[in-house]
């Protein structure tokens, strides 16, 4: 067996394992924020390894000289798709978490530093320590 084939199998196994964790993490946590935390990071990390497996497979085929142009195209386009995932996934999860907090879903059982007691916390400015000192003086 080619050593590159073994590398492909190892990369695929790592990627599939982390995607399994992402799928299970959606069901194992109590609120939306911890679900996001469990699924987004592991999903991105697993996708990196799955794409790397495809790239290694394409490059090993390219070195064997089978349909060289197609294999090179496969590797480069996979890397472009990986860049799209790496940009889209964390930004999207940030937007979801922000929207969930703004529309009033609070995390369970933790002290929420962003919680001002009302939804739409943007307008509601908390007095800072400086303000409190000035008021007292």
């Amino acid at each position, binding site marked *: 067996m080619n050593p590159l084939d073994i590398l492909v199998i190892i990369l695929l196994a790592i990627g599939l394992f982390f*995607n399994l964790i992402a*799928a299970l993490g959606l069901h194992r946590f109590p609120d*939306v924020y911890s*679900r996001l935390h469990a699924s987004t990071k592991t999903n991105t990390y697993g996708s990196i390894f799955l794409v790397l497996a*495809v790239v290694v497979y394409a490059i090993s085929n390219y070195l064997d000289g089978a349909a060289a142009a197609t294999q090179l195209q496969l590797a480069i386009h996979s890397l472009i798709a990986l860049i799209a995932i790496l940009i*889209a996934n964390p*930004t999207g999860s940030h937007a979801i978490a922000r*929207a969930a907090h703004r*529309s009033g879903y609070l995390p369970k059982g933790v002290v929420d530093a962003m919680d001002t007691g009302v939804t739409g916390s943007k307008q509601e400015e908390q007095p800072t320590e400086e303000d409190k000192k000035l008021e007292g003086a």
Partner: protein
Amino acid sequence: MNIFLIAAILMAVFISIAILRIILGPTTPDRVVGLDTTNMMVIATMILLGAAYDSVILIDVAIVYAILAFVATLYISKYLEDEA
């Protein structure tokens, strides 16, 4: 059997686990989280299938799908934010 095809079938199983969260999810943001995870897994599966069938066109579809899924997620989040 091609090893990438086996990996893609396993990814399909994980996608169905993630879809369960869209069905069960008690609140709207939970469903959006399930949808986002499902979208990203579908992209990875498309790349695996592109390697399994040695066709670049599937990977081009995955790139476009990634961008459109991102825009859809932002749109839903924006709507959720304005609704409150």
